[in-house]
């Protein structure tokens, strides 16, 4: 071990240094670990609120002609449920929470490149996210046009009142927060890596976050611009999206989905990165095909920006063969990833810890959602199933597989590092199995409902439609899932009240975050191991199986 960072300060600084405590410290800290944890707490809170809305939606659909909530309230519920899950939970949880906390540790950096910008990002996220919920307290109610806000439904004549405006402001603030985080991530990964940590030695989670950061910079500004245009249409008499003034409503869809489809991968790639960290550690093998995984990640990012209009096949205004072909192509790099994970597990000495259980559960769940995505990339199938529950089931399976199953794999994997405490394995297993069972019971019937013609976003259906039984199964599944999710809270509370201390490297991890204490000190590291491969901690702990580059006497030639 060699000393990397000295945290000693000069005399004048020591005199000036009065670290605040408690609430003021929480508000003012620019430490990436504090901000990362804030992101995680906030995003998980939004997730549980949006999950409660999902239960209300499913309860409404349990019986034909359900009257748990009114039709307007139902529209508000599915709008805010979708908006919170996508804008306020899935993305910020990954690139605000995990990335903030883990990336600087994995690259051996003392903090993010722009710590104060990082803090500002969090406050924009928190205030923006809360603003969305304020809509429920206005006389006209919250936004009720779906998370995609299609024009002209989202224009003033059809969606009047402050609720939709609050939604627009909320998404704009959260969008700026995302852009700032993207800038911060890319800069940190490009310029703050530890010496010897070349790009092709970076952990795959860090690679995923780098590519996610670039995608954020491509996608989010487009959404912000579209929101400005929508607001101008609503209040300044502009006609970007209204036919009366010579505008084009479909332009909103083009702009939105140019953001929206990369957004799907902004949500998914970080969680792919988590699986790529968990699987090799628990299979006790290096990842199979490191470079293949890196290039697959880059290929997914590139292709994701060229497929936006596959959400618009039924508008009749898009180039079907172009978007269909590119959408089908995405299956290739995604398939590379899935086969790489399987090949890594193959022949490994597998430990079925809770993180590995969630990772193993993720693979079939994601493949099921992905395969139906390939089906939907084919225009004839899309024409038949567009705006039905088939699509609802497809994207819920993709998103829950990534954000929940891969997300929980990450939580259980890094919880000891973040808190210095272990979560209960026993409760964790129940957490996994009950959530997993509920997941399949909830969404498989929705494919059948879609094929039988049940449209999405309807508050009631008739008893004669033949949808009743499958809807009831789906609702029961949703409640089972909720019980599984509640067990996670039980586990966290238990670890808080009866702490079990975690070692610095409880899983025998291979990447740099496991080279520091649990939880890490201010500025992360007192010392770093030499970095001569993609698995520096493994090299230090298992020199007999090390794959480190040999040291050349007289120094490295490439340095001169």
């Amino acid at each position, binding site marked *: 071990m060699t000393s990397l*960072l000295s945290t000693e300060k000069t005399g*004048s600084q020591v005199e000036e240094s009065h670290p605040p405590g408690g609430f003021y410290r929480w508000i003012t800290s620019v430490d990436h670990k504090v901000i990362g944890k804030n992101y995680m707490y906030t995003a998980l809170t939004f997730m549980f609120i949006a999950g409660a809305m999902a239960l209300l939606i499913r309860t409404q659909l349990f019986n034909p002609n359900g009257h748990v909530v009114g039709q307007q309230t139902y529209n508000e519920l599915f709008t805010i449920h979708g908006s919170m899950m996508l804008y306020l939970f899935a993305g910020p949880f990954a690139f605000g929470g995990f990335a903030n906390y883990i990336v600087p540790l994995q690259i051996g950096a*003392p903090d993010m490149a722009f710590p104060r910008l990082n803090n500002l990002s969090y406050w924009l996220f928190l*205030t923006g996210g809360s603003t969305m919920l304020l809509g429920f307290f206005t006389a006209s109610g919250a936004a009720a046009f779906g998370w995609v806000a299609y024009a002209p439904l989202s224009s003033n004549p059809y969606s009047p009142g402050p609720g939709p405006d*609050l939604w627009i402001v909320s998404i704009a603030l959260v969008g700026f927060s995302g852009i700032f985080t993207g800038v911060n991530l890319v800069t940190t990964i490009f310029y703050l890596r530890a010496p010897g940590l*070349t790009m092709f030695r970076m952990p795959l989670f860090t690679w995923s976050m780098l590519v996610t950061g670039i995608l954020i910079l491509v996608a989010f500004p487009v959404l912000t611009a579209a929101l400005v245009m929508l607001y101008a249409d609503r209040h300044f008499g502009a006609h970007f999206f209204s036919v009366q003034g010579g505008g084009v409503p479909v332009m909103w869809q083009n702009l939105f989905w140019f953001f929206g489809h990369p957004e799907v991968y902004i949500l998914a790639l970080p969680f792919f990165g988590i699986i790529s960290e968990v699987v090799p550690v628990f299979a006790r093998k290096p990842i199979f095909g490191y470079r293949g995984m890196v290039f697959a990640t880059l290929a997914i990012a590139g292709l994701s920006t060229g497929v936006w209009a596959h959400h618009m096949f039924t508008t009749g205004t898009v180039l079907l063969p172009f978007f269909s072909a590119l959408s089908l192509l995405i299956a290739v790099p995604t398939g590379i990833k899935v086969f790489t994970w399987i090949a890594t597990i193959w022949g490994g000495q597998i430990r079925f810890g809770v993180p590995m259980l969630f990772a193993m559960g993720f693979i079939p769940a994601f493949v099921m959602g992905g395969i139906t995505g390939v089906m939907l990339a084919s225009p004839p199938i899309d024409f038949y199933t567009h705006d039905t529950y088939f699509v609802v089931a497809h994207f819920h399976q993709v998103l829950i597989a990534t954000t929940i199953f891969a997300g929980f794999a990450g939580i259980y994997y890094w919880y000891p590092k973040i808190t210095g405490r272990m979560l209960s394995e026993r409760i964790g297993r129940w957490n996994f199995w009950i959530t997993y069972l509920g997941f399949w019971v909830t969404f498989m019937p929705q494919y059948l409902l879609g094929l039988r013609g049940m449209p999405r976003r309807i508050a009631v259906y008739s008893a004669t439609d033949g949808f009743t039984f499958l809807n009831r199964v789906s609702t029961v599944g949703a409640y089972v899932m909720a019980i599984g999710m509640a067990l996670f809270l039980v586990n966290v509370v238990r670890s808080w009240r009866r702490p079990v201390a975690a070692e610095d490297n409880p899983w025998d991890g291979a990447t740099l975050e496991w080279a520091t204490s649990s939880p890490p000190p201010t500025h992360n590291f007192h010392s770093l191991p030499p970095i001569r491969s993609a698995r520096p901690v493994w090299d230090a702990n298992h020199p007999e199986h090390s794959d480190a580059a040999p*040291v050349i006497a007289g*120094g490295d030639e490439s*340095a001169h």
Partner: protein
Amino acid sequence: MRTESRIYLGVGSFFLLILIVYFLWSKESTGSVLLLASAGLGILPGLYMGWWSRRMRPRLEDVEVVEPLDISGVVGTFPENTIFPFTLGIGAWLTGLAFVFGVWFAVIGMGFVLGAAVAATVESKRASLAEPANRPAPGGDGRLRDR
């Protein structure tokens, strides 16, 4: 820097390729403009980094075998706690609410934003001067030392 440059150039070139195919095939303007902007977003920083990577020695993080000691130094000279991002965030939020509840919100919000921006700049300058390398030379004219 070379790998970083190639990533940006690769992504930008791919966008350029699909822009050409898409525009010639569809003649659709919204998507073409967005693809053009995305291609520029990739190619510009890619060229900039590539230009520099040919004119500088490899950074330590790009060298295969190196000792961590080589970049040892003092960290944490910038403030670990500061109220100004929070103030700026609240100001931006209030300014955002002005678009819903009336322009008087913006008056308060912009006050917060401007105040926080000025204060954060002053804070940066003070923190920068606290770094040994940036301290004015003793007995000098108060200017920063030439680095």
